[in-house]
């Protein structure tokens, strides 16, 4: 022992024992002493420090109730030892003593002089100014980084409390984030993936998780938001300068990826430019896909934006497969984005974004469809070859004005232009068909929000919107069968032009009040839409219009509603929310008009924190205006072999649904069970009526009064801490019952039953190799026209990770698809190397090692079975390097 510690009272007997022991044990000096005041009174609790400056040794103790103390000092610290005695209310006293080898026991008495103690000192340590943000969790990223992360997304995956899902959506503290801010600014809004996937991980200093986030300062006063956001904070050296990264990857088979990213963060302006190119299957447009959001997130008022959305009538078959896009998308993708935020003055902020995306894609599809409409099977066979050129140019401009404590105004303008060109060659039932589709989609919209704080927990929130979408289609079609139908020459061309325009506007005002256990809200709103759909089919041979296949539809709809609602806290474990919407819906087209009042209640009871688990029960009624596509007056060409027409009568759609959710976990949280159930019954919907022949399909709509849908899911997850292994079992079942007419004048029941099972597991071993796996079995059955059909497939995933060292990581992914026809096995290998403290990083990838070149599967949609075969991306090897500056 280098030093002793004794700050409690040492009894005289003990001292004696020590003194005696000292005789026996060699080489330990004992310094005892007694501390008194001038009156001879023993001083208790005085601190005595002994130190030898030469041997850099110190020890200390406190005196006991008799004023005695004992210090033990090893022989190696012999020499001059200074003793310092301090006691409250007395002056400090020092004495020194030379410890030598000739003796081991020393006695040193102290007499202290009284002193009036008066201490007053104030120190303000400004350098210790740390962020005091109650619900902000700040994470210094360097402590979590492995150094091999490429993008912010890769880094977020490693941070505690943050998850990144496969589609790029981000969750923090268990919920989907609402915004991804950078230096406090919301640059990308709902396109935050552009930021997380492209910004270099190296520039980050800190990530903040903002719980109960609300960027509208008026709504924030109610501190009820369940929204969550992330704020990325940059390292100092990346502020006020241009920074970014360059990346290049080259592979066999002309595989290429390249990226240039630039950023500038200044007080006045924040700006980012991300550009990338690849031909590896990653679609550029996917980067603009909206992220997922948590359901049932409590917000004070309805902040959802109403955006225009109209779907064109004509379409070209596209590949829709269960595979990952990197396995089957043969494309060229270019993406570029520019985003900036700037302060116009103290109260006004302006945000702008621009996106450019272009995907050139080739698809090859062979399909064989059997319709189960009649006693005899109708079979269609096709080989489809598509060349698709999809582009998007989009921009947003947002102005935010914060007038002070009472009101907040925000205006957002969004523009989007999407030109698309698809060339399609088909061999349909042995005959060659050509079609070219040129489509332009243009959307403009404006959203205005005003929040006003009335005071004493009352709020008025208003929202106004305007939107317009126009989709123009121009189709050149050369189909021998359609030409025959119109009595045209076999190689004659048909041209169809479609123009669909939607104009919508409206607004709503909510009054919200918060009490202790009761929150109430009243919302009044109005929405109006006008849809104009025009189509013309022309024969180039006859140079005239095929009048019976043209449409011009003017469709108007409006809804006025009054919606009171409340949320009541029944107890700590139970709450009830209810709202009723009283709606007046008016629909008008051609000579038909329908105006109807409806009553739409919604109730939810939530019981939580019970021993039994959590239970949520909900009931809701919905009345909806049908969409305009149900009201086309005449048959209109919608694919190269089919025509579609609207319904004869106008009705309001209605459905009722019941939801059930149950969740339980054991006390140690090693086992959880979740159950979900939904029953939905339609009291009115438009169902399809199809006339199918070998070469054509004619569809129209008719109104049915009943259909049912039931779904249920079960999840059971367990963790075995002793085995370092966790596993999950999911079962999903859905059953639906609907009515349709296929080659008959009578409705027939179509029953579809589908089941999905998944079983998976993950290891948490201490050694560097770990794996996870999942086996999925999917089965669909249908019953229609007394004919049963069934298909099923199985996928098996296995991922192995090997952390070779801190800078080298290797992984292997295998996916085995077992369809009824065949087995397909995809293997990918990855090796990444990021030397620590280097601006360069390297990656080696070998995709589709077994070189699977095609994939076939069977799909059923009730009355038809389609067997299809698609071409896959062949095996390639790729090396990439990335440089950061």
């Amino acid at each position: 022992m280098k030093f002793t510690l004794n700050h409690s009272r040492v009894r005289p007997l003990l001292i004696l024992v020590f003194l005696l022991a000292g005789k026996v044990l060699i080489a330990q000096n004992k310094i005892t002493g007694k501390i008194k005041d001038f009156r001879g009174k023993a001083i208790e609790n005085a601190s005595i420090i002994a130190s030898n400056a030469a041997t850099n040794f110190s020890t200390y103790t406190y005196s006991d109730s008799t004023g005695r103390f004992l210090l033990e000092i090893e022989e190696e610290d012999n020499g001059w030892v200074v003793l310092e005695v301090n006691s409250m209310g007395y002056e400090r006293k020092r004495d020194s003593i030379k410890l030598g080898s000739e003796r081991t026991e020393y006695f040193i008495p102290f007499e202290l002089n009284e002193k009036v103690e008066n201490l007053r000192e104030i120190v303000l340590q400004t350098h210790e100014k740390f962020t005091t943000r109650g619900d902000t969790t700040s994470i210094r990223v360097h402590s979590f980084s492995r150094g091999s992360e490429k993008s912010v997304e890769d880094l977020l995956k490693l941070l505690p409390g943050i998850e990144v899902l496969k589609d790029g959506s981000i969750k923090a503290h268990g919920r989907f984030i609402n915004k991804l801010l950078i230096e406090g600014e919301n640059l990308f809004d709902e396109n935050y993936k552009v930021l997380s996937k492209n910004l270099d991980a190296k520039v980050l200093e800190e990530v903040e998780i903002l719980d109960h986030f609300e960027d509208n300062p008026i709504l924030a006063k109610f501190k009820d938001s369940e929204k969550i956001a992330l704020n990325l904070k940059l390292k100092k050296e990346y502020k006020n300068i241009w920074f970014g990264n360059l990346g290049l990857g080259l592979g066999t088979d002309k595989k290429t990826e390249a990226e240039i990213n630039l950023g500038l963060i200044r007080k006045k302006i924040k700006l980012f430019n991300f550009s990338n190119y690849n031909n590896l299957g990653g679609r550029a447009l996917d980067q603009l896909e909206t992220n997922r959001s948590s359901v049932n997130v409590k917000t004070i008022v309805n902040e959802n934006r109403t955006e225009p959305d109209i779907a064109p009538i004509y379409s070209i078959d596209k590949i829709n497969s269960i595979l990952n896009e990197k396995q089957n998308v043969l494309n060229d993708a270019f993406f570029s984005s520019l985003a900036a935020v700037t302060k116009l003055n103290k109260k006004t902020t302006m945000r702008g974004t621009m996106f450019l995306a272009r995907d050139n894609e080739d698809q090859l599809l062979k399909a064989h469809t059997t319709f189960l409409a009649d006693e005899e099977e109708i079979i269609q066979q096709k080989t489809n070859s598509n060349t698709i050129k999809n582009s998007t140019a989009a921009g947003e401009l947002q102005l935010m004005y914060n007038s002070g404590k009472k009101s907040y105004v925000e205006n957002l303008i969004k523009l989007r232009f999407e030109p698309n060109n698809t060339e399609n060659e088909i061999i349909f039932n042995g005959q060659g068909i050509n079609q070219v589709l040129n489509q332009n989609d243009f959307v403009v919209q404006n959203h205005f929000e005003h929040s006003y704080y009335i005071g004493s927990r009352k709020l008025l929130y208003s929202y106004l919107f305007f939107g317009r979408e126009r989709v123009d289609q121009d189709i050149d079609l050369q189909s021998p069968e359609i030409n025959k139908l119109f009595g045209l020459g076999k190689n004659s061309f048909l041209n169809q032009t479609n123009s669909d325009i939607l104009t919508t506007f409206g607004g709503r005002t909510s009054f919200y009040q918060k009490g202790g256990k009761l929150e109430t809200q009243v919302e009044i709103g109005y929405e109006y839409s006008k849809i104009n759909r025009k189509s013309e089919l022309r024969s180039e041979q006859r140079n005239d219009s095929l009048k019976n296949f043209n449409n011009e539809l003017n469709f108007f709809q409006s809804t006025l509603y009054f919606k009171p609602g409340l949320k009541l806290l029944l107890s700590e474990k139970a709450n009830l929310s209810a709202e009723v919407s009283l709606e007046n819906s008016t629909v008008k087209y051609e000579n038909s008009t329908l105006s109807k009042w409806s009553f739409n209640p919604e109730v939810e009871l939530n019981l939580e924190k019970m021993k039994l688990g959590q239970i949520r029960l909900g009931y809701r009624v919905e009345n909806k205006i049908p969409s305009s596509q149900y009201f086309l007056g005449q048959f209109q060409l919608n694919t190269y072999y089919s025509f579609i027409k609207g319904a004869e009568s106008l009705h309001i759609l209605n459905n009722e649904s019941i939801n059930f959710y149950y969740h339980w976990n054991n006390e140690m949280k090693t086992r959880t069970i979740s159950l979900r159930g939904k029953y939905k019954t339609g009291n009115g919907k438009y169902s399809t009526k199809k006339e199918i022949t070998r070469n054509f399909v004619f569809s129209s709509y008719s109104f049915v009064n009943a259909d049912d849908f039931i779904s249920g899911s079960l999840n059971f997850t367990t963790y075995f801490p002793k085995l370092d292994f966790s596993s999950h079992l999911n079962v999903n079942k859905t059953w639906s019952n609907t009515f349709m007419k296929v080659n008959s004048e009578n409705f027939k029941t179509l029953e579809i039953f589908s089941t999905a099972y998944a079983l998976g597991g993950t290891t948490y071993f201490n050694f560097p190799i770990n794996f996870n796996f999942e086996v999925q079995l999917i089965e669909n059955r249908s019953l229609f026209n007394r004919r049963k059909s069934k298909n099923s497939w199985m996928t098996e995933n296995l991922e192995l990770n090997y952390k070779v060292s801190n800078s080298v990581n290797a992984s292997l992914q295998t996916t085995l698809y077992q369809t009824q026809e065949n087995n397909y096995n995809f293997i990918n290998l990855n090796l990444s190397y990021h030397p620590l403290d280097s601006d360069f990083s390297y990656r080696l990838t070998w995709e589709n090692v077994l070189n699977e070149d095609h994939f076939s599967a069977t799909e059923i949609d009730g009355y038809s079975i389609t067997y299809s075969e698609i071409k896959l991306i062949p095996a390639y090897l790729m090396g990439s390097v990335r440089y950061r500056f």
Partner: protein
Amino acid sequence: MQEMKLLLVIFFFAFQFSWGQEKGIVYYGHIESPGMKSPAGPDLNSYLVFNRKESYYVSAKDSLEKENKGQKIFTREDGETKVVNNGKNTFRFGKQVYYNRAKDSMWWNQRFKGNIYVAESTPKINWKLSNETKQIGKFTAHKAVGDFRGRTYTAWYILEVPLPYGPWKLQGAPGLIIEAYDEKKEMYLYFKSIEYPTKSKAVISQVLSPKGSNPEWLTIKEFENLLRKSLEKAYNNTVIMSEKYGGDRPIEPKFSEVYIESF
């Protein structure tokens, strides 16, 4: 003469009594940031009142913080204000530590899924004294390093107050500890001011609890088991969530990375 003697005795006792009762107060900044690897947690006010026999430390007390409404409005560097809503960091009686030297015991409370109360004999910290000193205000503070419940603390004590007290549960140095932090600064206690003697109304009290709450005093072992179980639960939960919804493989947390005190 007899009267003189009596007077002297009274004076003597009064003097003794007054010394026993003479109290001092130290104000600290208290930042607890378990798992954050930096002092990034909320910066709370705290104080220590003491006399020669006992000390009472309190932090996270409602009345010590100006903003305890659970809402934080902060001004960004560009002048714009942002509102972030927060949960409360403080509560009525705060986190308290009462230390009695004669009984060589400590009583304390903290929030951990409700209020918990622990009574234990004073934990011994083997402070290694160092020659290093630094100036904190007018004081020359001396450095001592000691291990306490899973962390190594650096403490800066002053000999002007040669009493073994300190902020939170850190005690037993040759003088009053006025600054202390662990290696990651996840527990960061810094000095703001001192007054001795003080007329402050702050009392050296036993651990206070809400009226009628009748706290159940846990032993330190029971507290340890509580933490152990909670840690296991939290990790189990992350494994379950990652298994259920997919996501990166969670890394098992170390006791000392999650809690300030580990065993």
